[in-house]
């Protein structure tokens, strides 16, 4: 398993660097490519939405309430750290009650 992780990490690192540098080197005079950016934005939205659902451990009421409050915070402040903190705080309070 550790070898799989090492290879995976190396592949992700290489991919990460190449995707940032190579296009910049080859398309130095390219304009922003706005239409494709929109497609990639939609991909990110779709991926995060699916990953959100897949990583909820239990589909109970307490989880739902915690995520609903976190959603309100995310919509208001657009802050990832604060969203996570609020979700955990609401879940903690719910468990105590």
């Amino acid at each position, binding site marked *: 398993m550790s070898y*799989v*992780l090492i290879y*995976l*990490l*190396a*592949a*992700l690192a290489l*991919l*990460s*660097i190449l*995707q*940032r*540098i190579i*296009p*910049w*080197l080859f*398309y*130095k*005079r*390219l*304009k*922003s*490519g706005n239409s494709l*950016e929109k497609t*990639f*934005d*939609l*991909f*990110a*939205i*779709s*991926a*995060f*939405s*699916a*990953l*959100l*659902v*897949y*990583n*909820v*451990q239990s589909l109970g009421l307490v*989880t739902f309430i*915690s*995520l609903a409050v*976190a*959603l309100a915070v*995310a*919509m208001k402040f*657009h*802050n*990832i*750290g*604060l*969203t*996570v*903190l609020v*979700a955990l705080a609401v*879940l903690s309070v719910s*468990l105590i009650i």
Partner: protein
Amino acid sequence: MPYLGGRRSTIVNTLLVISAGYLPSGIAFGSISTALRIPGIYTISLSLFVYSGAVQSAFLGYWAAGIDPASIILTAFLLNLRHTFYGAHIETLRGDIRLRDIIVIGPLLTDEVYAIAVSYPSLSLPNLHGLSIYAYFNWIAGTAIGIIAIYYAPSVVLNILFLALPALFLGLLVPRIRNGFGLVTAITSGVIALAGRLLGLAPYFLIVPILIGVITGLTAGKIAKRWSE
């Protein structure tokens, strides 16, 4: 010293915004990763070498759902495709970028650094270098703090922390939904993923709601454009 457009307060604000965004997210990533029993060396290596909140979060998602290397590489490739246009866009805004600058800034080019670079075209190259390195160290420091902090937390905290992962995706998702097409994409993908979970489908099914979500969002956009014409 040449600050952003000569305004010292602007660069101080920018540094604070970067720290406010990167430190908590790094801490969340480090602690969630450790809670998911990913060894610390891999966690810190992900932040050091991959340096992409989206890809690293996706990695955690795949790890938790049962890792599938091919799917995560494909997801990472598609998630980072937007970076393809970042450097080119910066290049069009300033004509003083040399190969050495691309080599230095390129690997550290994130959504935030890109946003600052295009929002402040007057930003000097040394300051752009400094800003990208500052963001990078914030991310590494946040990850390290998260890894260490989790060891001092009681077991009940670990159970609570499992909600941090979906909350993290929620925090990443919401700011990206800026119009109806984004909302349609998120709902479609989420509903299909939920159906997949309820039906007990294998983890590799995850790529299906993602792709269907994108296709639905693009189709909705085209239909809306035709109607408006």
